[in-house]
């Protein structure tokens, strides 16, 4: 097999993933307590269909699926990029303090009066934008502090990971402190917020996530060679003309940024940023030219599938999708780890 045939195989994998994503999305659109046959689904997507079908599909299911695609793709890409720049297979945006920072921000907003929750599992947010904004600021501030700390040691990958562990621990402690002073209703709102839920995203949120993702995705596609170089170590990266410190700074910041946007809107959903890039690395290798789009597709496929399961498994109830990804994620990730060790 020559090099060009090898490259073509990756393109085929890309197309296969894309088609699977399409199929799962259509299935997810048609399934649920209110069943819509595939014909009707297609009719609605093409601008026809009955009024009820349009309401359910375009108003409820489609925005949720689009959110799944955007959040999954963002986490997949962010994970792939961080693993490359930090040369650490365990790196995800959550390494950069995003989840703990967001949790602290959201908890703070809630205790300041932005919302409360009754046992029903419904969060009543008097001020949903305050929660989103605080969660975003919490997440991005954690990342900025981590990068500032790591600068003390020349922004080396080890320094970033260590600073990440330290700040995550600090933000957890702050969250616990806030929760200690919260009343019951606020406390349950905080807990419910922490279950990632794609239903929180409407078209407006999706539009924001899409713009953020498109910008960051394009940036990383342009920097794919720098990412390849980074995996070989800083010395080789510098020798082939990569300004590695600058790219590591921008890369970690942008990864944390798109994840912060998605976490602010839908909450914390774990493991996608680990499973998507690692499975693609095992199947298609570590070349970021293909790893970036493949991780995006795999992340989207994973999250839309998991969310479909979460909606259907105990229908008409819906489980938090974060529970499904963690349930699937833990064993899948251990499997990947074992396989990876075997390769050395």
């Amino acid at each position, binding site marked *: *097999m020559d*090099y060009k045939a090898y490259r073509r195989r990756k393109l085929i994998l890309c197309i296969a993933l894309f088609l699977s994503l399409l199929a799962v999305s259509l299935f997810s659109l048609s399934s649920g307590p209110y069943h819509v046959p595939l014909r009707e689904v297609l009719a609605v997507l093409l601008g026809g269909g009955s009024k009820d079908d349009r309401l359910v599909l375009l108003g409820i299911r489609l925005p949720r699926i689009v959110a799944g695609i955007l959040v999954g793709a963002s986490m997949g890409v962010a994970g792939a990029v961080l693993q490359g720049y930090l040369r650490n297979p365990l790196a995800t945006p959550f390494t950069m303090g995003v989840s703990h920072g967001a949790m602290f921000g959201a908890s703070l907003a809630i205790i300041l009066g932005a919302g409360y929750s009754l046992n029903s599992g419904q969060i009543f947010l008097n001020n949903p934008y305050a929660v989103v904004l605080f969660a975003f600021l919490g997440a991005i501030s954690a990342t900025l502090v981590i990068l500032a700390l790591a600068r003390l040691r020349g922004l080396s990958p080890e320094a970033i990971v260590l600073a990440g562990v330290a700040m995550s621990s600090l933000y957890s402690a702050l969250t616990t402190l806030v929760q200690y002073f919260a009343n019951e209703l606020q406390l349950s709102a905080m807990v419910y917020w922490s279950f990632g839920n794609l239903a929180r995203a409407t078209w407006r949120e999706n539009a924001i996530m899409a713009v953020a993702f498109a910008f960051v995705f394009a940036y990383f596609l342009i920097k794919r*060679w720098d990412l390849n*170089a980074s*995996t070989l170590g800083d010395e*080789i990266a510098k*020798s082939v*003309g990569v300004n590695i410190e600058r790219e590591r700074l921008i890369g970690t910041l942008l990864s944390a940024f798109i994840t912060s946007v998605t976490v602010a809107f839908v909450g914390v959903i774990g493991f996608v940023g680990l499973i998507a890039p690692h499975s693609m690395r095992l199947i298609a290798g*570590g070349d970021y030219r293909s790893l970036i789009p493949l991780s995006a597709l795999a992340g989207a496929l994973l999250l839309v599938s998991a969310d479909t399961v979460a909606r259907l498994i105990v229908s008409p109830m819906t489980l938090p999708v974060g529970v499904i990804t963690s349930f699937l994620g833990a064993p899948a990730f251990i499997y990947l780890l074992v396989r990876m060790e075997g390769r050395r």
Partner: protein
Amino acid sequence: MIEARNLRFSYGEREVLRGISLEVGKGEFVAILGPNGAGKSTFLRCLAGILRCEGVFLKDRPVRDYSPRELSRILAYVPQRVEPGFLTVFDTVLLGRRPYMGLTPSEKDLEVVEEALKRLGIEKLALKRTNEISGGELQKVSIARALAQEPEILLMDEPTNNLDLKSQLEVMRLARELAKGGKTVIMVMHDVNLALRFAKRFVFMKGGRKIADGSLEVLSEKLFEEVYGVRVEIGEVRGVPVVVPL
């Protein structure tokens, strides 16, 4: 071509290079020798522009004035160790073309990579991942990447590490050929005899200083005692000097 003028360097408080001056011209093949911790790797990293140092000049211009891309077209550096990973051998060597390419490699870039793989005799490994090959093969991949960069100056840190006897000779011959073809080769070496056999100029370092510099005539038993603290006898086999520790 490349020059160090009273080069000093410290890691934090610790001074590792204490004023080294060295000028290397086009087409020279220089071996840097010395005990562990002498500062050889640090010196090479300074020359390569990987560590920011005052006092390194490339074509009479300070290295730090060059843009990374400009520098990477003139200078290629082969580090002492390379991390294996999920990138294929071909894609790793293709990184050597980054200084020349836009977003996608041209046909010429692919040809240069093929050529570099052939020169190191690793074209069969092209589609293997670097975590599936041996340490010696990985070392050759690293050298092939530097060749693909088509640099004027090649800086190599112990490139014969991990290589079997035959591969060691192949790499040294390759370096000699490159120097004959007009490239400047500076190589940190541990194997003194291999260096004596192939290189044309020898720089001995110890404790961050340059102790001796010159062609075969600078060699003496006293020099080895001073630099390595080892008594040796220098003999000759087939016209090539051989150093035998006593």
